[in-house]
């Protein structure tokens, strides 16, 4: 799965954005550009990306963007692709939302659009908290993570959007990580050629919310996959594929220790032994369910 450089020109993001240094969402946005080409419009819901675009009348994103209220991304995209189709355009419509806009406030409109099998790609950039407003807990925050609203460490597990979206019977569901650009780019390219609702959730480790050195963003994104905290999986028309980078996770014995992932991050500073076991149980459970999917 190698991609030549000429395939990887990206016009989705122009230098001089308002993102924090080391921003994983910017990485993902550039990869979207590498994958999808130019015939793309975006709906960006409230979140870091509303700010990252910079100050109007300039825009750091190379794609036309409709910025919209927090809960309205999937709805707006539903109207947009229909309007473009009526105007005989083959444009790919992409919703770009964070985990708050996906798992929490935007979930009703996401679920509605998925149930209607609307024809667009929904990209959730999951940094596991409300990072734009200062790192508050979201439904996607993992067990044990300290956030500005869970200073004690979150007591509940991460909401399983992967499985929730699978239960919507949509043609394409995938997870990816900015640690593995080729995997993400391949998935986006496959998704582009599928009609109907396509959901991709990309892990975007945030150095400022997860509390690690920003130079290590890509490294943490890889570690999440290697320690099997984050799966790379694709379900395309019910065909389940676990990416090569994640195959070792199917067996518990071959997984890299979860500590290698958690110990790098300040957000797990309050992680007790019991919390850690809870997190490990979560990983076991995750892969049990994935194994069952593959049967």
């Amino acid at each position: 799965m190698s991609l030549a450089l000429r395939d990887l020109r990206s016009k989705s993001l122009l230098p001089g954005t308002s993102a924090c240094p080391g921003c994983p969402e910017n990485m993902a946005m550039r990869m979207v550009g590498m994958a999808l080409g130019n015939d793309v419009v975006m709906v960006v819901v409230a979140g870091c990306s509303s700010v990252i675009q910079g100050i109007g009348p300039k825009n750091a994103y190379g794609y036309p963007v409709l910025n919209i209220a927090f809960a309205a991304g999937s709805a707006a995209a539903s109207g947009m692709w229909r309007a473009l189709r009526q105007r005989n355009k083959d444009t790919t419509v992409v919703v770009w939302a964070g985990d708050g806009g996906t798992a929490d406030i935007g979930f009703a409109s996401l679920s509605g659009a998925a149930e209607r099998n609307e024809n667009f790609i929904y990209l959730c950039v999951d940094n596991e908290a409300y990072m734009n407003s200062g790192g508050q807990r979201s439904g996607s925050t993992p067990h044990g993570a300290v956030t500005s609203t869970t200073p004690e460490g979150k007591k509940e597990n991460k909401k399983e959007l992967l499985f929730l979206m699978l239960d919507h019977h949509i043609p394409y569901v995938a997870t990816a990580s900015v640690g593995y650009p080729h995997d993400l780019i391949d998935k986006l390219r496959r998704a582009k050629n599928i009609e109907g609702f396509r959901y991709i959730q990309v892990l975007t480790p945030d150095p400022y919310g997860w509390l690690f050195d920003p130079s290590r963003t890509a490294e943490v994104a890889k570690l999440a996959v290697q320690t099997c905290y984050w799966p790379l999986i694709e379900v395309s028309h019910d065909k389940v594929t676990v990416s090569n980078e994640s195959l070792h996770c199917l067996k518990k014995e071959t997984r890299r220790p979860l500590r290698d992932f958690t110990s790098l991050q300040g957000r797990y500073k309050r992680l007790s032994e019991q919390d850690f076991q809870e997190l490990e149980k979560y990983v076991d459970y995750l892969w049990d369910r994935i194994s069952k999917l593959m049967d």
Partner: protein
Amino acid sequence: MLPNYQFFPVSHPEEGAGGKTGNWRVVRPEVTSKCIGCNACFLWCPEGTIMVKGNKAEVNYVYCKGCGVCANVCPVKAITMVSEA
């Protein structure tokens, strides 16, 4: 024939929408002769400010924020972070 009171918050793609972000930098990436032009830095640069030209990575210092991701992902450690001080 748009009346002069009309104003629409429309924006267009342009570099530097967040300002001259090179000013944010406290450490700068410097590409040494060890560079093999593999494009890892290009792939992961969050700002799109590093490009391989003629088998060697070049940094756009106008906008590079000095996050150090490029140095971290370089497989041959060809990028060193140098203080701006």
